[in-house]
Every structure is written in structure tokens, then in C-alpha cells.
């Protein structure tokens, strides 16, 4: 009988908390969106599955050795940990109360030395880091995974349309307005007392408006790792929603005449220009914003590999095999941040709402900028390509093309929209660099 009880106490059903159950459902929902609705499946499948894994009771896949020991260890070990952490445990209270007390101390943050000693105790009695926790440490906490993805994106990007019409860079700049308005929104909500975001957290939320998954993961891993799960989920789900969010805004801000504007054919761009461009961009980063160097440096490196034409094999690996491997690990690591006690908070709703606003404002600003440029320049510019300034390559450019075709079936805007689209990637990386410089 006693053995049976032990088995029962070790089972998932006995230990499942309400929060974990809800988070497993959230993970299932993400899987449904990815598989059933084709929302960014490449990322949402690993993220959703990682989220489910992270919430398996007792398994502690997403916990560090110390957290795990606190979660499941015997009272004797808890006593040992309490000694190290300098907590006095109430002898009369239950083991559960002890665990809560220890958890509180670890989360409040004590000195790094003490935490290290406590960790040694936990490892000493046989607890290890969970698998997802290790993934997270290696891939995201170190910043490596988003950067390798950025290199792959660089290797997939063709700067031709941008080089043929460099002024579209302004559209990519204007669309970054969404980032900063959202930051202001998050700060405003705090001022009004609705939410409680610090400036760092607000900045990390704002980056969702950059519509660039790796950039937002990179920034939030530096500025607000505690919000990373919600931010990554918001930014990838909204990227998938670009075809739904953007068209109404685009139609509201432009007239039929403007949507019909036919743009002049892009000039051909020579190979030399394409090779020199990433180097020129890199030099500007070196001179003006070294804080954006990790992101833009890897991006330029990937692009140079693509364009120089002598390292086919490396470029091929960067844009296929490597980016796929890293995507799997990145997705699972993000999933590890979908733990109930961190994700099921009122703040998450705020982040989802703000992310949506960020997208909408970025789109609107890009279009308004394009209208302005059309008014002042000799060359006609169709305002629809402005919305592609929120990166989300190549989805946003396709949306511009589609809305343009609805207005005029012979007007192909795709190549024209690719210019602002890749400009948006550069723009959001620059904005990320500024934020890291200012707050990091």
C-alpha cells in the first residue's frame, strides 16, 4: 500500500498545479495555431512543444539545479540549502511552506556568491540543470542563437532592390516609430498604474514592433529575460498575423488613386555594389553604433558570404542547415520560458496588447512616410510599400504586393517593397542597438 502511495505521489496528476495545466493548454494552442493555421510553424511548433515540456510537473525540465532541489528535495536538503542561503525555516511549518520561503529568497536575488554555493549544494546532492534550462543558457542567455539566425537571415537577404533605390531606407526608419510608441505606451501604463513595467521591460516590449523575431529575443534576453517568453510568443504570432493586421490600416490611410501608382522599373544592380554594401554598412556600425555590432555584424557577415560568391558552401549552410538547427534549439529555449509562474501574469496580456499596437503604428508610420516621400520626390512612390518597412521579411512585402494588385491588377510591387522590407531589418537592429546602449 505504501509503495502504491509513493507511486501516486510521484505521478503527474497528483502534482499538476492549475497553472501548469493552463500552460500545457497554452502550449497546445500554440501547436494548433502552428499546425492548423500555419502561423510561423517553424518557430511556434518548437516553442509550443517546449512550453508543454517546461510545464510537466516534477520533471523540472526548465529549472536550474537549485530551483529543482528547492522544488522536490527532501526536508533535510532544504534545511541544508536554508543554511547556505541564510534563511531560518520555521520548524513547525510544512515542507511546502519551506519551499515557498526558499523560492522567495532565490527569486528576490541574493548575492551571486551565495547563489553559487547554494547551487553547489544542490548539485552535490544529485540535482542537475533541466534539459531546457541548459538549452536556454547555451542558446539565448549567451545571445548566440538569435545572432546565428540573424546571420542566416543576412545570407538569405538580397539587397538588390534596396541598392537600386536607397531612399526606401527612410521607410524602414519610419516604421520603427512603432517600437518607440509602444515603449511609451508601456511606460504610460505603468504611470497610470495599470501595469508595472520598468524602463528596461518597456524597451524590450517595444521591440516587438520591429517585427523581427531574433532581434526581439536578443534584446529581451539582455534587457528583460523574465519577459522573454511572452515577448517571443507575441512577436512571432503577430508576424504570422501581418496579412490580417496590415491591409485594413493600409486601405484606411491610402486612396484608390495612390494605391494604383505604378513605380518605375528598378535599375540593375552590379555584383560589386552588392559585395561592397555589407562592408559599408558594417563600417557605419563601427563608426556610430558599436552596440548594434553583434546583430548587424552577423547580418553583414551572412550577406557578404552570400554575395561574394566564393564561399557557396558556407552561405548554403548558414541559410539552410545551420539556421534550421538553431531554430529548433531557440524554439525549445523560448518554450522553457513559458512556465506557469512567469507567464500567467496580468502583464502578459499587456504585452500582447502592446505588441499589436506596435505593429499597427509601425505600419501606419511607414505608409505616412511613403506618402510624404511621394509628395516631395520626382519619382513616383506607391504608399503601399511603406507598410513593408516593419521588417517581417518577406511577409510584409507580399502583403504590399497583394493590396497593390487588388487596386491595379497589373501593378507588381513585390520587388519595390523588398527595399523597405530589408531596410526595416536594419532599422530595427539599429533601434535595438540604441536601446541596449541607453539601458544595458
Amino acid at each position, binding site marked *: 500500500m505504501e509503495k502504491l502511495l509513493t507511486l501516486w505521489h510521484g505521478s503527474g496528476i497528483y502534482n499538476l498545479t492549475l497553472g501548469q495545466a493552463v500552460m500545457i493548454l497554452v502550449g497546445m494552442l500554440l501547436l494548433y495555431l502552428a499546425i492548423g493555421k500555419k502561423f510561423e510553424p517553424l518557430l511556434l511548433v518548437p516553442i509550443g512543444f517546449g512550453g508543454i515540456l517546461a510545464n510537466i510537473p516534477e520533471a523540472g525540465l526548465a529549472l536550474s539545479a537549485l530551483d529543482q532541489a528547492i522544488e522536490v528535495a527532501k526536508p533535510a536538503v532544504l534545511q541544508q540549502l536554508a543554511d547556505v542561503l541564510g534563511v531560518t525555516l520555521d520548524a513547525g511549518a510544512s515542507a511546502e511552506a519551506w519551499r515557498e520561503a526558499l523560492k522567495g529568497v532565490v527569486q528576490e536575488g541574493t548575492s551571486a556568491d551565495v547563489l553559487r554555493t547554494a547551487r553547489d549544494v544542490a548539485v552535490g546532492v544529485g540535482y542537475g540543470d533541466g534539459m531546457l534550462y541548459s538549452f536556454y543558457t547555451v542558446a539565448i542567455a549567451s545571445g548566440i542563437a538569435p545572432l546565428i539566425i540573424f546571420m542566416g537571415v543576412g545570407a538569405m537577404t538580397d539587397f538588390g532592390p*534596396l*541598392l537600386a533605390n*536607397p*531612399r526606401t*531606407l*527612410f521607410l*524602414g*526608419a519610419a516604421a*520603427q*516609430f512603432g*517600437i*518607440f*510608441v509602444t*515603449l*511609451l505606451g*508601456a*511606460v*504610460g501604463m*505603468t*504611470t497610470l*498604474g495599470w501595469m508595472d513595467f*520598468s*524602463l528596461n521591460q*518597456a*524597451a524590450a516590449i517595444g521591440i516587438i514592433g520591429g517585427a523581427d523575431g531574433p532581434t526581439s529575443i536578443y534584446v529581451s534576453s539582455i534587457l528583460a529575460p523574465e519577459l522573454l517568453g511572452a515577448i517571443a510568443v507575441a512577436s512571432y504570432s503577430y508576424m504570422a498575423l501581418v*496579412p490580417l493586421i496590415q491591409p485594413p490600416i493600409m486601405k484606411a490611410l491610402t486612396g484608390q488613386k495612390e494605391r494604383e501608382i505604378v513605380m518605375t522599373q528598378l535599375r540593375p*544592380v*552590379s*555584383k*560589386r*555594389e552588392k559585395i*561592397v*554594401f555589407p562592408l*559599408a*554598412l558594417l563600417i*557605419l556600425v563601427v563608426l*556610430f*553604433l558599436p552596440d548594434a555590432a553583434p546583430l548587424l555584424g552577423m547580418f553583414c557577415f551572412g550577406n557578404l558570404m552570400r554575395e561574394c560568391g566564393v564561399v557557396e558552401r558556407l552561405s548554403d549552410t548558414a541559410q539552410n542547415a545551420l539556421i534550421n538547427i538553431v531554430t529548433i534549439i531557440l524554439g525549445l529555449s523560448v518554450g522553457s520560458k513559458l512556465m506557469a509562474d512567469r507567464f500567467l501574469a496580468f502583464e502578459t496580456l499587456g504585452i500582447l496588447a502592446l505588441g499589436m499596437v506596435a505593429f499597427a503604428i509601425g505600419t501606419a508610420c511607414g505608409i505616412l512616410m511613403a506618402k510624404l516621400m511621394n509628395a516631395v520626390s520626382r519619382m513616383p512612390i506607391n504608399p503601399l510599400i511603406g507598410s513593408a518597412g516593419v521588417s517581417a521579411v518577406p511577409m510584409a512585402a507580399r502583403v504590399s504586393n*497583394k493590396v497593390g494588385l487588388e487596386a491595379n491588377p497589373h501593378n507588381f510591387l513585390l520587388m519595390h517593397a523588398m527595399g523597405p522590407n530589408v*531596410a526595416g531589418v*536594419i*532599422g530595427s537592429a*539599429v*533601434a535595438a542597438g*540604441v*536601446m541596449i546602449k*541607453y*539601458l544595458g
Partner: protein
Amino acid sequence: MQDMQLLKEGLSLMALGMGFVFVFLTLLVIVTTLMSRFIARFFPEPVAPAPSPGAATSRPAQDNDSMVAIAAAVHRYRRRRR
């Protein structure tokens, strides 16, 4: 009061960030334009050799074929996307 401080910081970060993004991308526009001109001026692309007559005749047919394929694909894509 501390909240007002936060709001102020947010505003200054916004002004600084937006300003910097524009300055940086403006510089990039200038550098790119200069770079393109420089390359066009001093390292012009070698003139493409005149296409051989055989290639010239087969081109249009091929283009028609691919146009048909593209049109069909676009049509199907749009249908699926409603």
C-alpha cells in the same frame, strides 16, 4: 513622482532612439548612393557579351512558358488565400 520620472525617461529614449535611427539610415542612404556612383564610375560592369542567335530565339518561348507557370501559381495561391 517616480512614475513621472519614468515617463520622462521613456520620452527621451523615444526622441533619442527615433532620431538616431533616422540619422543612421540617412547616413546609410548617402553612403550607399555614393558607393553606387563610385562603383558605376570606376568599376563599370563588363558589357555582357551579345547573346548568340540560338539563345535569342529560344528565350521568348521560355519566357512565355514561365509566365504561364507563374500566372497559374499566383492564381492558385490567391485562391487558397481566398
